[in-house]
Structures are given as structure tokens and as C-alpha cells.
């Protein structure tokens, strides 16, 4: 499969006087399920935003398969195979489930801007192919019956699945999940774990932020723990559980999931 590594080296992101991400380094290997954890406000989402181009981080380097991607805008990061989901779901809430997933096929489509004015046989075929792919993905995520529903009106758990379906439609090499279990009940969380395994079986690397420690311990192979933007520990889930600095960080804050 695609053997690209995501390597962060000394990444720092400041907002005015506040240092949100402080000299962070980590190394995600192909096929891994990697976790980034830490108490609330530790800077995890900001780190993700730096990777995916939403924030420009001033210092450090972010390489993907050897290529420096630190200063690329979001759409160029996606073109290189890195796709993310959001902590607060960012779906196109007034549109149907199928159209939302179809948005994921945007970069997979060969159509040019003029196909918006005149169709050609090739563009019509492209449309058919992409809609077919959309429905295949809906099947994978057990969402076919919701295809025509307006996404904003659906229950939270289903919206989360649609968001993952959309991310998968882009055919990512690295999937970045920002708190995918937030707001899910136990059953839905179990289904999520299943889904993450199925995704990894397809050869996709997964990098996730999560507060649900059961999920983290079960699913991840390697973790980096950060607090106040700085890395305080890294290792396998077993090692992290016993790490005194980590325990201190979580007990010191009000986190109760640990």
C-alpha cells in the first residue's frame, strides 16, 4: 500500500502571546492507528489544524512521505491523501446525505470547470461512476436508507457516520479523526471501533484525537500525550497508562474519562 510517513518536527503554533502547540514532534507510520491525547485545551485540535493547513504554523516542519506540507492550504493537503473529520461535525447540513458524501468525490472526479457549462460523454460517465462510488460507500457505512435525507435533520450518531463516509469517499491515505466518539453512546462507540479496524484493513493510516479512554486503549497502537501544547509522553497504550507524568496531567485537570 501507500507507504508514507507523517512526521512532525518541533512544530510550534502561537496565537498572539499564547503558545497553543509547543515544539511538538511525532512520527506516524503507514498502517498505524496512532492516537494524540491529552486534557482539554491541550492543543490537540490545533495540532491537527496545523497538519491539515487550516492554521499556518510558524515554526517546525511537517512532512508527508518526505514532502514538506507545513504551509500548504487545506485543499492541497487533501490532494496529497490526508483527510480529516471535525470535532464539531462540519457537514453541509442543508443537503442530503448522498450529496454530502458526493462532495468527497470532488477531487476524484476528472471533470473540468467547463463541464459545468457543457456536458461531454466523458463527463457524464464520470458523474455515473462517482455516484456509484457514493452509493458503495453508503453501503459500507450502512447509510443507504438515509441517502435522500437532509443531513441536518438526522440524529447525531448518523451524522457522525456520514462525516466519516464523506472522508472515506475521498479515498484517503491518512485519515485524521478529531474526537470521532464524542457524543456517541456505547453501541455507537463499538460500531466506531469496528469501522476503524475495517478502515485500517483497507491500508489506511489512522491518526485520532479522543477522550474516551476505553476506545483509545482498545484501538490505538501508539500514543503521544500532550498538555499545554507540549509533548509529555509517548508510547504504547500500556506504557502510557503507567506513565506518572500522564497520570499527573489527567488527575491534575478535571478529566474523568481516565
Amino acid at each position, binding site marked *: 500500500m501507500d507507504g508514507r510517513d507523517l512526521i512532525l518536527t518541533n512544530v510550534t503554533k502561537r496565537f498572539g502571546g499564547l503558545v497553543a502547540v509547543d515544539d511538538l514532534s511525532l512520527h506516524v507510520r503507514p498502517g498505524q492507528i496512532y492516537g494524540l491525547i491529552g486534557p482539554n485545551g491541550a492543543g490537540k485540535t490545533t495540532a491537527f489544524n496545523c497538519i491539515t493547513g487550516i492554521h499556518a504554523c510558524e515554526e517546525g516542519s511537517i512532512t508527508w512521505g518526505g514532502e514538506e506540507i507545513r504551509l500548504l492550504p487545506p485543499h492541497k493537503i487533501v490532494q496529497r491523501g490526508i483527510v480529516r473529520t471535525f470535532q464539531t461535525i*462540519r457537514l453541509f447540513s442543508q*443537503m442530503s446525505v448522498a450529496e454530502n458524501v458526493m462532495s468527497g468525490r470532488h477531487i476524484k472526479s476528472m471533470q473540468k*470547470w467547463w463541464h459545468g457549462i*457543457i456536458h461531454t460523454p466523458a463527463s457524464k460517465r464520470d*458523474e455515473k461512476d462517482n*455516484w456509484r462510488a457514493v452509493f458503495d460507500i453508503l453501503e459500507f457505512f450502512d447509510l*443507504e436508507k438515509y441517502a435522500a435525507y437532509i443531513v441536518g435533520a438526522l440524529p447525531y450518531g448518523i451524522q457522525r457516520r456520514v462525516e466519516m463516509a464523506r472522508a472515506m469517499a475521498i479515498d484517503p491515505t491518512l485519515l485524521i479523526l478529531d474526537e470521532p466518539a464524542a457524543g456517541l453512546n456505547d453501541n455507537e462507540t463499538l460500531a466506531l471501533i469496528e469501522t476503524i479496524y475495517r478502515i485500517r484493513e483497507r491500508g489506511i493510516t489512522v491518526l485520532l484525537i479522543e477522550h474516551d479512554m476505553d476506545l483509545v486503549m482498545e484501538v490505538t497502537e501508539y500514543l503521544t500525550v500532550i498538555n499545554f501544547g507540549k509533548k509529555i509522553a509517548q508510547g504504547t497504550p500500556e506504557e502510557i497508562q503507567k506513565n506518572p507524568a500522564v497520570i499527573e496531567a489527567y488527575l491534575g485537570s478535571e478529566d474523568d474519562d481516565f
Partner: protein
Amino acid sequence: MMKKLQQLGYPLFFIVMALLPVGLNDRWLAIATTFIIFTIVALSQDVVLGKAGMFNMGQALFFGMGAYTSAILNAHFGWPLLATLPVAILIPSIFGILLAGPIIHLRGDYLLVATIGFNIVFVQVLENNLGGLTGGPNGIFGLQMLTIPGLAFLQNFTPYYIALIALLLTLLIFRNLETSKAGRALHYLREDDLAAGSIGINTRVYKIFSFGLGAGIAGMAGTVYANQYSAVSPEAFNFIQSVLFFTIVLVGGSSVPGIILGVFVMFILPEIFREFATWRYFIFGFAMIFAMILRPRGLWPAKFGRIPKAFLEKG
């Protein structure tokens, strides 16, 4: 029932519009022709405002650019009007792309004011008879109108049918747009710009595309308009006209029926109530306020769910 209506809607509309001139006197024929032309401009406005969600209040600029391009080429350089059409589409499109580039990142209200600014500059350039070409405040007269060879007996109706053909073309483009990657991209970036970027859409390129496309369609409408009156003048393209097109899209709603409805309400109704000349716009203003309070998304808002039927049947 709704589906049947939708399927019949367009053919029915065109049949009615094709037969309409027979029952109209001269004044109402002219109004109907302008109605069609304004519908085309409003549709072009919808590409930028309704679909791509950008606050553009300067569409009359591109409308006028197309009209004046045709007028200048025809009156000063002797080009037949039909030949001016491609140029009248191309030049506004290029300007649409060039002007959009530097302002597209601006926050909504600022973009609005910038487009008004472009419109005002344009009109003043026209009025000042730049290079002796634009004809000053009175505009350019005496254009050679388009004729359909062999149908000379329909001479009176020619401007109307030319407009109708242009509308048909516009609606075909719209249908193609809605079932294409580019068209969907506009919807996505309107709904959530950040999310659209995060799934790989180069939002900047598509925003500029929408400006260019809207400008081109408006330019085409401009030529048809110049043809109808065989003249062009600056005041037909001032920013007050832009406000009209802007309002049509928002009051009518960002859908084809909505826009046709919007043009009817904002243009035909005042004509019907011409007798109440002094009162009509006064009442109108109130109507606009109430329309927004009661139907903030327009009389006939856009609907999504444009999923190809073939796939829906399976699920």
C-alpha cells in the same frame, strides 16, 4: 403529483412563452421581452449570489458590458450584431474573473460594497464617453437589429424570440451546472467554506469561476437587450439596476421558478400597476420588508436532493 408538475413545468412554461406574443399589444410585448432578458440576468446573478453565496450587488456591470460591447462593435465598427455575441460574452467573463480575483476573499458586506463600487465606476466611465466610444449620458443609438432570415413577417416579434432562445440556452446551462462537479462545488463552498476546502475543493478557483460564468451569461443578455432597443444607455446599467437583480434573487428564492417569480414580482407587477405610478414603489418597499420577515429564504427557495433517480430507485 409534485413530480408530474415538475416534469411538465418547463415544457409548459416554454409553450406558453412561445405563444404569448400573439395576444400582446406593442407595449406588453416590449415588457415581456424585457421580462425574459431580466430573467436571464437574474439567473446569472443567482450563479454568484444564490449558488456560490457571494454578496454581489454589481451584476448590472456585466450586463452593461455585454450590451455596450455589442453596441460599440456594431455602431462604430460595423460588425453584425450576431457576430458581436461571442465577444459580448467573452469580455464580461474576463472582467468577471479579473475583478473577482482581488476581492473574493473579502467578508460579505465588504464584497457587496466593492461590487457596487465597480458598478459605479463603470457607469461613470460610460457617461464620460471614454475614448469617444461609449457615447456619453445618452448612450449609443441606431444599432442594426438581429433578423432571422426568411422570417421577415415575424419582424416585430424577433427581439422577443431571440430573448426566448437566450433564456432556453441559459436554462440548459443551469441544468448542466447542477449536475456537474463544478455546480456542486459552488453549493458546498456556499454552505461551509472551511469544510469545502477541507475535502479538497479549491474554493477560490470556484468562486472566481462563478463570477466569470455569471458575467458571461449577463453579457449575453446585454446583447439581446441592446438588440431589443437598438440602443444602449448608461442608466440602464447603474447600480440601482444591480440592486433590482440582487433583490430578485433573494425575494424570489434561489431556484429557477423562484427567480422567474422574482422577476415577475419586481418588474411585471410595477408595470401592471403603472396607473398607481407614484404609490407603487412605496408599497413595494413595504412588500419587500414583509417578504423577508415572512419568507427569509425567498418565495420559492432552492431545494436540494439532486440525486440521480437511477440511484435512488436502488436504495
